[in-house]
């Protein structure tokens, strides 16, 4: 439901009644085919929201070229005709879009609709908006045209943006040579904008934009002005190091307070203090404001209407052990609404909210969803090809450039073609029904559609074939729109090419065969490896959803690393929550817990894993499961530096929590111990917050104490920033050090001397400490490797588990059916582990809720008469889907032969095997060598 907003929520968990107001689109979604003719004719230009006002759109428009749904809409506040109608004028202007719309989709009389919808639960994922620096004035945004926001810069860099990716100054179109990025605009700044929190994502996107801009324009100079570089995510620090060392991006630690114009030519002047402490004035062509994230006003109104509480930073209030649960029962939150976060974390929360919903609604699963029913399939084996060709006009999109009648006439001459017809829109509902009727009436056994791209429309035509009792793989599309009528401007050439494309499609479909659907049964149980907070949360959620779960823990008791923690960053006590979790897990009848047990062997594939567990006593148990969650945690680094273990009073962060601090006056925290350095170039993410929290506690206990934190970049990201503020206001001293000037720790009688180079004085200072706390980092465990080999799941360069896609599949493994949660994936605080654990459960539940998975039939098939078991394909298969079988000899005394076997569940149909096979012994169904070469021959036939 687009153009829709929630205006009221009544009822309670399990049974809400939601009022949704749907604004008029003025374009009939069923009729619009997104040809774009209307936009071309529309005379009214407005700033494009999508391009962040760097470009224009029309009053009738599509939000962006790949929008879903790809349907146009009229902006009622800008359209000449609609505004005139609203004013009650009699003589109405314009109306061009209606005139040019062949599909008849324009409806100026469309009205607002109200829907009452009954749902069991609600997920709020309304997102954020970028901070608007116009009113703050100090940066000259809105005054000097060459000051842009990072979102605008993103559009300038984009090939689909206003300058098609060329970096030119908005003021005069001059090529940009020098760009400055100013960080923390609208973040960590209570004075100018009231946003005290850190937006978490700006440091990383600024680096990315700087690197990409340099790639666009060789020789471009880029400087990032920052307070702390907060690149705390997975592989972020490595990216920053590459930006510094390989791409040559300058990083300057200085907050720039204003931007001044230098004369009238558009240049901008920044004055700042450089890394050596010298006051500098420098000129730039372009200044990019790295704007923060904030909750939009309409979302705050939505929150108020929904009755859910928000924090002081105006984000949805949640608890650390239930990070996607709002203050109202049955309403969940995900994404930037519950605090600024990056894409992977937002995606994790999307899945986590799904898990939380499923926990509540499990009894009602499958109640409202329906399975489509299709008629029995006709067996066409042995029939001569009887091909139906359907040529689509696509309104004037195809028919305007291609002589479709000529194409029709030509198609009739092709071998095997039994029927040809033209449709105004082959994809329309009535044309689909007509197609099904023709298939049945004429006994067609193959279909070629000359229309648009199979990437969007093949699924639709497959469904049509199914509904006509024909196997869905007996259709082929000729892309005479995207690859032809849209890219050529000669009717003669386009018509000829359309004929060629139809000939190729007919040639290919002639050799198409019915493909049996492939389905794999699913064992509806899960195995969770690791009994920490992540593992327990995941197991518990799956059990609440109704699945049987086995939970394996290596040590003697459940709880993991959380057993060593006192408080979460927001101050919640950890121990009682962990105790509660352990209790719930132990008492849940669907969960079987194995402690002092390890995974010793694993085999199988999605839906059908077999894992061998080995107890301390050597007893082995084999578990069959459909999905697996790896939540094995991580280790704390044991420092070897700064006199740890040698000098009394030098402790690590965990020791410190339980250490006796009574009577001690002087404390020094050293950050990044074992993190962010050669060999371990990643941020451990939790240490800054932990040290700041400890420092606050020390000061609160005794304000006369001297507490120092020696840090590289203070990474109290997102709403944690308030802890950093509080620590400073309590008088905690923060001293910045660089990696090449690490502190020196030496014993000096009863005290410990810590020497560090002061960044303000630029000279060494010595602090006399009673206690030195090393904020030691987090390391992967030594047994990650064996686990990764057993399940064929990979590790990243730092030794943590590697997810399938850094942004969009953050809890899946590339191996289907296996998921990752918690610190095994990357160091993270508790609430992020919980969110990822819930996400892993949601992802696993999408599998386990089905009895079988149906897979696309485009898979490798073995021709055992040709395969001689040479096994060349076994090694090239990227999915480890091919194995070698030995076939017993049929004749007595003969040697056994070999043949390959393809595991259809693992095969993705890429066809590397097909290209490798010297004997044509294996081929991807639907893309056989015969089909492809028939297409090539047809292409070259004339």
């Amino acid at each position: 439901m687009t153009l829709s907003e929630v205006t009221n929520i009544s009822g309670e968990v399990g049974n809400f009644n939601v009022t949704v107001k749907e604004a008029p689109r003025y374009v009939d979604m069923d009729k619009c085919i997104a040809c774009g003719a209307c936009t071309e004719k529309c005379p009214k230009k407005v700033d494009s929201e999508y391009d962040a006002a760097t470009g224009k759109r029309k009053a009738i428009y599509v939000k962006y070229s790949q929008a879903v749904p790809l349907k146009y809409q009229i902006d009622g506040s800008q359209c000449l005709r609609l505004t005139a109608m609203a004013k009650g004028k009699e003589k109405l202007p314009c109306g061009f879009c209606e005139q040019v719309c062949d599909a008849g989709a324009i409806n100026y009389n469309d009205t607002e609709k109200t829907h009452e919808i009954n749902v069991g639960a609600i997920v709020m994922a309304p997102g954020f908006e970028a901070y608007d620096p116009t009113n703050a004035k100090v940066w000259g945004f809105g005054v000097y045209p060459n000051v842009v926001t990072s979102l605008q810069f993103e559009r300038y860099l984009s090939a689909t943006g206003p300058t098609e990716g060329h970096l030119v100054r908005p003021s005069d179109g001059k090529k940009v040579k020098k760009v400055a990025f100013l960080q923390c605009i609208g973040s960590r700044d209570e004075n100018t904008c009231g946003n005290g929190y850190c937006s978490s994502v700006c440091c990383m996107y600024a680096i990315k934009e700087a690197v990409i801009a340099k790639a666009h324009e060789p020789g471009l100079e880029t400087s990032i002005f920052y307070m702390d570089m907060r690149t705390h995510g997975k592989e972020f620090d490595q990216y920053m190091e590459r930006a510094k060392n390989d791409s040559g991006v300058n990083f300057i630690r200085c907050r720039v307070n204003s931007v001044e114009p230098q004369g009238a030519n558009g240049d901008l002047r920044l004055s700042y203090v450089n890394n050596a402490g010298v006051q500098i004035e420098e000129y730039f062509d372009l200044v990019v404001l790295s704007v923060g994230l904030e909750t939009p006003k309409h979302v705050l109104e939505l929150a108020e209407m929904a009755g859910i509480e928000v924090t002081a930073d105006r984000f949805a209030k949640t608890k650390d052990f239930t990070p996607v649960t709002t203050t109202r029962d049955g309403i969940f939150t995900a994404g930037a609404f519950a605090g600024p976060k990056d894409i992977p974390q937002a995606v994790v929360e999307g899945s986590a909210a799904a898990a939380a919903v499923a926990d509540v609604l499990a009894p009602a699963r499958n109640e409202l969803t329906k399975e489509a029913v299709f008629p029995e399939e006709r067996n066409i084996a042995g029939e001569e090809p009887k091909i139906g060709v359907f040529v689509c006009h696509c309104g004037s999109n195809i028919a305007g450039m291609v002589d479709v009648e000529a194409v029709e006439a030509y198609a009739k001459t092709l071998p095997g073609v039994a029927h040809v017809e033209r449709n105004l829109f082959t994809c329309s509902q009535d044309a689909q029904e007509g197609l099904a009727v023709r298939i049945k009436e004429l006994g067609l056994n193959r279909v070629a559609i000359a229309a648009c791209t199979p990437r969007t429309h093949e699924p639709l035509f497959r469904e049509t074939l199914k509904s006509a009792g024909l196997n869905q793989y007996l259709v082929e599309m000729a892309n005479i729109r995207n690859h032809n009528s849209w890219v050529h401007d000669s009717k003669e050439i386009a018509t000829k090419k359309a004929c060629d494309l139809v000939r190729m499609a007919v040639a290919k479909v002639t050799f198409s065969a019915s493909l049996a659907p492939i389905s794999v049964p699913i064992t509806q149980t899960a195995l969770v490896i690791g009994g920490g907070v992540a593992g327990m949360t995941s197991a518990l959620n799956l059990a609440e959803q109704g699945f049987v779960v086995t939970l394996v823990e290596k040590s003697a008791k459940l709880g993991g690393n959380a057993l060593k923690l006192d408080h979460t960053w927001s101050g919640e006590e950890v121990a009682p929550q962990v105790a509660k979790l352990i209790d719930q897990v132990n008492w849940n009848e669907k969960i079987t817990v194995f402690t002092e047990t390890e995974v010793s062997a694993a085999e199988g594939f999605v839906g059908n894993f077999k894992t061998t567990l080995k107890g301390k006593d050597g007893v082995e148990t084999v578990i069959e499961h459909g999905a697996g969650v790896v939540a094995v945690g991580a280790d704390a680094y044991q420092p070897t530096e700064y006199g740890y273990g040698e000098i009394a009073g030098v402790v690590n962060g965990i020791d410190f929590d339980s250490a006796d601090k009574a009577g001690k006056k002087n404390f020094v925290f050293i950050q990044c111990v074992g993190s962010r350095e050669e060999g371990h170039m990643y941020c451990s993410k939790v240490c800054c917050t932990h040290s700041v929290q400890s420092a606050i506690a020390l000061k609160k206990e005794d304000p006369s104490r001297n507490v120092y934190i020696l840090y590289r970049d203070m990474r109290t990201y997102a709403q944690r920033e308030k802890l950093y503020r509080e620590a400073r206001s309590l008088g905690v001293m923060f001293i910045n050090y660089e990696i090449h000037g690490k502190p020196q720790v030496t014993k000096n009688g009863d005290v410990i001397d810590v020497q560090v180079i002061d960044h303000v004085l630029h000279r060494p200072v010595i602090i006399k400490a009673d206690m030195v706390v090393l904020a030691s980092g987090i390391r992967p465990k030594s047994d990650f490797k064996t686990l990764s080999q057993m399940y064929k799941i990979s590790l990243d360069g730092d030794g943590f588990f590697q997810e399938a896609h850094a942004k969009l599949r953050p809890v899946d493994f590339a191996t289907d059916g296996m998921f990752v949660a918690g610190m095994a994936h990357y160091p993270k605080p508790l609430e992020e582990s919980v969110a990822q654990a819930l996400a892993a459960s949601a992802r696993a539940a999408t599998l386990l809720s089905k009895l079988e998975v149906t897979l696309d039939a485009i898979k490798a098939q073995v021709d055992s008469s040709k395969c001689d078991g040479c096994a060349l394909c076994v090694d090239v298969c990227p999915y480890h889907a091919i194995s070698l079988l030995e076939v017993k000899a049929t004749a007595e005394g003969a040697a056994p032969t070999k043949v390959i076997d393809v595991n259809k569940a693992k095969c993705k149909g890429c066809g590397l095997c097909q290209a490798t096979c010297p004997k044509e012994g294996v081929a991807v169904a639907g893309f056989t060598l015969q089909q492809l070469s028939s297409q090539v021959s047809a292409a070259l036939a004339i």
Partner: protein
Amino acid sequence: MSFEPKIIAFCCNWCSYAAADLAGTARMQYPHNVRIVRVMCSGMVHPELVMDAFQQGADGVMVLG
């Protein structure tokens, strides 16, 4: 008449074929003498297919993925 090469392009469904679709959406004009054959991965293109194309008169073969 000037020489007009015949070119066969094997395009991966997930990237180059999608790119060709987008070129259409953006109405980018390009020479007409390319014929695109859709494959599920450029890795599926057997060397014999390429040789086949040349034998049957193709002047150029592109494998895009």
